[in-house]
């Protein structure tokens, strides 16, 4: 890296141990990571490697038990209270009693924006995720892909610069997923947000990211951080280029080195 943008997330020696009935489980250990503004960072690894836990620590949904972490230069709790990030979950988690429009309005209502401001932002974010025209529909009237797009719109609505996405397309089929990946890249390019993206798909991670954080389980740790050499504009067929395949091979090597393919 030639330039050093201001750190949005910075973690050092971060660790988290869950106390369970079977004794302590080390979900994260010794994680050192700095994420700069405007980066698209993917966290990849097998289940149990702590990638979701790391995202939840950044979001202040879990508390680290050792080490230090800052989000936008604040503690995660302060950052959460300042609504520093939008979070997209594995499922859309839209409220079925609210229309798509009112779902997107949910964070805006909590923040306490005026009706006019709400309407303007709803319109803008729904257009951003190509859901204009579906404002009055209920979530259960839409397909899974559209629901997940609505949940991304909801996370974007209050204009946080950081977007945390926890396997947002994991439950969708590959065709829809390709399409949404393309749209997500486009959205990232236009809005210049910082995105942290958890996935267990190697092609998805390589296609989307400027940096790929490879993680391994028992204990959850970072085994490799790979800088992507792909250009910022990425058509879907970039995935057949030798450059893409080389990066994918490095990710796979990183996973193997962390014994992710054992047992």
């Amino acid at each position: 890296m030639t330039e050093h943008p201001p750190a949005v997330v910075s973690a050092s020696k971060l660790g988290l141990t869950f106390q369970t009935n079977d004794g302590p489980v080390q979900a994260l250990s010794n994680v050192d990571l700095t994420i700069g503004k405007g980066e698209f960072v993917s966290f990849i690894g097998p289940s149990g490697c702590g990638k979701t836990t790391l995202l939840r620590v950044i979001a202040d949904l879990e508390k680290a038990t050792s080490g230090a972490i800052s989000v936008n230069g604040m503690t995660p709790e302060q950052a959460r209270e300042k609504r520093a990030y939008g979070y997209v979950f594995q499922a859309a988690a839209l409220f079925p009693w609210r229309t798509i429009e009112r779902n997107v309005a949910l964070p805006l209502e909590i923040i306490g924006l005026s009706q006019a401001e709400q309407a303007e932002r709803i319109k803008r974010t729904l257009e951003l995720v190509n859901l204009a025209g579906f404002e009055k529909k209920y979530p259960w009237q839409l397909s899974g892909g559209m629901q997940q797009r609505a949940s991304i719109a909801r996370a974007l609505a209050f204009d946080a610069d950081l977007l945390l996405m926890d396997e947002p397309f994991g439950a969708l089929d590959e065709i829809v997923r390709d399409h949404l990946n393309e749209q997500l890249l486009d959205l990232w390019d236009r809005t210049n947000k910082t995105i942290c993206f958890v996935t267990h798909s190697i092609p998805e991670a390589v296609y989307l990211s400027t940096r790929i954080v490879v993680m391994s389980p028992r204990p959850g740790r970072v085994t490799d951080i790979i800088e992507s050499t792909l250009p910022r504009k990425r058509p879907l067929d970039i995935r057949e280029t030798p450059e893409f395949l080389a990066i994918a091979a490095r990710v796979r090597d990183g996973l193997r080195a962390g014994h992710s393919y054992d047992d």
Partner: protein
Amino acid sequence: MTWLKPSWQSVLAVLLCLVAFALGAMSKPEVAALAEPTATVAYPYMGAKALIIGLLLIAALVSMVTLTPIVEATVLFVGAHAAAWLLIKGIAGFEGTALAPYFLLLAAAWLLAWRCVALLSSLRPSESVARNALRLIIPAIFGAWILIIWEAVTRGAGIPFILLPPPSAIGARIANSLPILGSDVRQTIFKAVLIGYIAGNLAGFAVAILADRVPFLRRGLLPIGNMVSALPIIGVAPIMVMWFGFDWPSKAAVVIIMTFFPMLVNTVAGLAASGHMERDLMRTYASGYWPTLLKLRLPAAMPFIFNALKINSTLALIGAIVAEFFGTPVVGMGFRISTEVGRMNIDMVWAEIAVAALAGSVFYGVVALIERAVTFWHPSVRGG
């Protein structure tokens, strides 16, 4: 044989008609008349007997021919109900004298009505008007036959009035006692039930929110609430009468005790019903307790809360009526039932029961309708 498609109901109905015809006399006076052909003994069904058997046979036989279901159902409907009407009309004045053929013909008519309902239930009309009409007609025929059989059996077999009055007598009693029934409904339903229901549900709801907000209350109150729910209402009612007097407040108090706990438990369960992901979502918005409660947890709890409202709608009615057995001014449904049963006015007791059933159904229906409007999004309502 494509033009012939007999159903087991119509075949059995034809057989019953033939057996009834072979057995001859429909009633004891008819036996007497047949024994003495010279004497002029009045007996039921002098001319109508052949008509009844004929109607049933024609309806049964026509229904065996392949027709469109709607024509077949109409034929069966007319045949079965005309025959039933003639049977009930003919026995008037000769109650308790019916013999086996009377009951056989009643059974035959019932079988044809059964076949008619079966046909109607299998219809799948495309127009929504027809669908809605069918949704009403099918249970109406069903209900009508409960009354027809009740009426025909009590009158035909001469069941003592004290044991079971025929529905026509209960209907007449309702029509003649409207002012009394009206004042009873006002006293019991509009005062004791409604006020107790509203107060009990609001109290249960408020305590549930309180228990949710204050952890020590959740630990302490729920077990005690459990005990309150186990209180025998029969034991509590006299005490409430001592505390709150003879008039409706004591009955409302019983209703409050009965409705409080279902609302408390269901609301507490409902508040825990929202998913982890949704609650994490609210947390990422730095949403406080009250916004999370209002925007997420209460809407998610609505199916549970309406469950309690529906359970309580019937509990409240039971509570108020039973509580009136233990002292009341001279008005009220429970009071009327307990005094009229002592005066052997069983038709009045049944009239009160019918009114209570009607009021209970309307009450439940209104709550269920509001539920559909509020929880339209729930899979059980939207059918997805």
